[in-house]
């Protein structure tokens, strides 16, 4: 029983970041219909920015966190502006492949800049864990959980209670009508991509100090992001939030009760199983009748 509780707590701590990754991707995937292969790289970017700011320039941890996220937002906007703008009308293959090209270039640039050796990032939290009865949790993970919740709430507020958010929702529902209503689709796309990338960078900036930063860390993150999107349904933020925690729980239980080597496989298996039975995702809204 205690073991189960511990697994549950671990999942809770991690689920928030999975939710961040998933929300970011579901927005990009949903509003822009782009299979964003650079999403994982933004996650790695966030972690590496933390490394650079905290370890190489000695910045304050919390300031570095804010900066890392901001830089992630900027990088996302830049990618959209430079690469995706010109592909507005192109078919999904071309866009997807351009994203793959960008992913390769970004990942190898990161590897070139910081070498393949894993980098650890200091954090200002006490190393002794917080003990609650029979379970325990590290302080840095509690921090991660808290910040993730704040960011999720902020994103939710942005999407549902601001003009920009309303424009994004309109574009998701029906791009052509939204354009006819005067919404600048180009701006929405840049904002969406920047926001999604920022959330991925935030996840990386939060988890980098908990684990380590290494060049291919983005790949697994991307896969988990896709699993969360499929769990929660395209464009569904609440679904992605729940999906993030579900994925974390499935991974924890799988690693704990089956085999730790298959932890990362859980996400992939979930994807295959869900799509095999419900080809449009678990909580997907009905697509428009074409």
């Amino acid at each position, binding site marked *: 029983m205690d073991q189960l509780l511990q697994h549950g707590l671990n999942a809770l701590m991690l689920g928030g970041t999975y939710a961040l990754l998933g929300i970011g991707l579901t927005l990009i995937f949903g509003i822009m219909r782009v299979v964003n292969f650079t999403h994982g790289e933004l996650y790695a970017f966030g972690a590496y920015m933390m490394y650079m700011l905290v370890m190489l320039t000695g910045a304050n941890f919390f300031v570095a966190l804010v900066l890392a996220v901001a830089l992630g937002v900027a990088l996302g906007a830049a990618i959209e502006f430079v690469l995706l703008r010109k592909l507005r009308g192109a078919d999904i*293959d*071309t866009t997807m492949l351009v994203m*793959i090209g960008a992913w390769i*270039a970004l990942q*190898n640039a990161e590897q*070139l800049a910081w070498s393949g050796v894993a980098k650890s990032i200091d954090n200002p939290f006490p190393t002794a864990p917080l003990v609650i009865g029979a379970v325990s949790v590290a302080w840095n993970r509690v921090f991660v959980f808290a910040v993730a919740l704040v960011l999720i709430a902020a994103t939710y507020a942005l999407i549902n209670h601001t003009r920009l958010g309303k424009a994004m929702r309109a574009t998701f529902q029906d791009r052509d009508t939204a354009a006819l209503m005067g919404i600048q689709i180009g701006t929405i796309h840049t904002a969406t991509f920047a926001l999604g990338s920022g959330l991925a960078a935030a996840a990386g900036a939060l988890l980098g100090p908990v684990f380590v930063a290494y060049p291919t860390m983005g790949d697994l993150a991307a896969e988990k992001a896709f699993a969360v999107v499929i769990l929660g349904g395209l464009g569904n933020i609440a679904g992605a939030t729940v999906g993030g925690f579900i994925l974390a729980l499935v991974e924890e239980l799988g690693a704990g009760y089956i085999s730790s080597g298959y932890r990362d*496989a859980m996400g992939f298996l979930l*994807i*295959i199983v869900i799509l095999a039975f419900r080809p449009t995702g678990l909580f997907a809204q009905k697509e428009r009748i074409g």
Partner: protein
Amino acid sequence: MKGALTVLWLAFLVSIPLWMTNQYILHILIVTGIFIVAAMSLNLLLGYTGQLSLGHVAFFGIGAYASALVSLGFSVQLAPGVTLALAPNPVWCGMLAAIVVSGAFGWFIGRISFKVRGAYFVIVSISFAEVVRLVAVNWVELTQGPMALNNIPPLTLWLPGVGEHAFWKKPANYWLILGVAVVSYVLIRRLVHSRAGRAMIALRENEPLATSVGIDVTRYLVLTTVCSAAMAGAAGALYAHYVRIVDPDVFLFIYTVTMVIMVITGGKGTLAGPIVGGLIFGLLPETLRAAAIPPEAQWIVYGVLMILILYFLPAGIVPAVRQGWQRRRRDPAASPAGP
């Protein structure tokens, strides 16, 4: 004219091991050849049927492991008291097994691809490849995990006039792969220029219209995936018996990306595309390496190159060259509709 050119080109290719003494270059050509076969098989899916399958390396790797395991023999315990064992078999058995097993997985993916469309299928195909990779890493009893299957025997064939010949040396392997590549090309060409090929293209171009004239979507998606997977499996088997060591890294997504780059830049949906793309991206690493550029920088170059080609030559190099050639001939009867 065209036939004579092909014969000359083939004669040239066949002759290479006779005068190329640099074993390293021969090695590069062999590996490139294997990748070209894999790229041609991916082209069938990606180019002709329009299926966004990004898990292709799974079929390649499954073929490699299947052939290696069948030729080495294995023994695994599936459940307490239930053991599955196979004694070592001749390599050609292994290769056959590779084709069959990969083809079977292809059938499975083909059936899924009918239900799961577009971007979702991309994700499923990638996930499938990753699951297979993780199984290869973790099911150590069967695959030796990261410690790899080694001492894989080379292909042994009975050749007229030579007797039993074991393919240890590079020239023999080169000719073997050249042979397989030629056979693959011919098979694909026949498929594409037939009723089946037209059905595949029709599904890609306009699925509702295709079904309205009687084309069965599931049937052709499955047919294509099976052929494509079987061919990739064959390439994987060739790889296993040439390199003679197979580890889970053979399932890395980066190899799918390499194949995709080859097909896309060469020209998807054309017969020559994967060959051109394969030659470029098989040989490019070597030229870059000669210039002492670190591997990461190489990949950045590929990434950028791919993006540039997607922007400026979205159909790929072969169609662009063909169009330029036709414009130069200024032949009014020449149709812009490609194969």
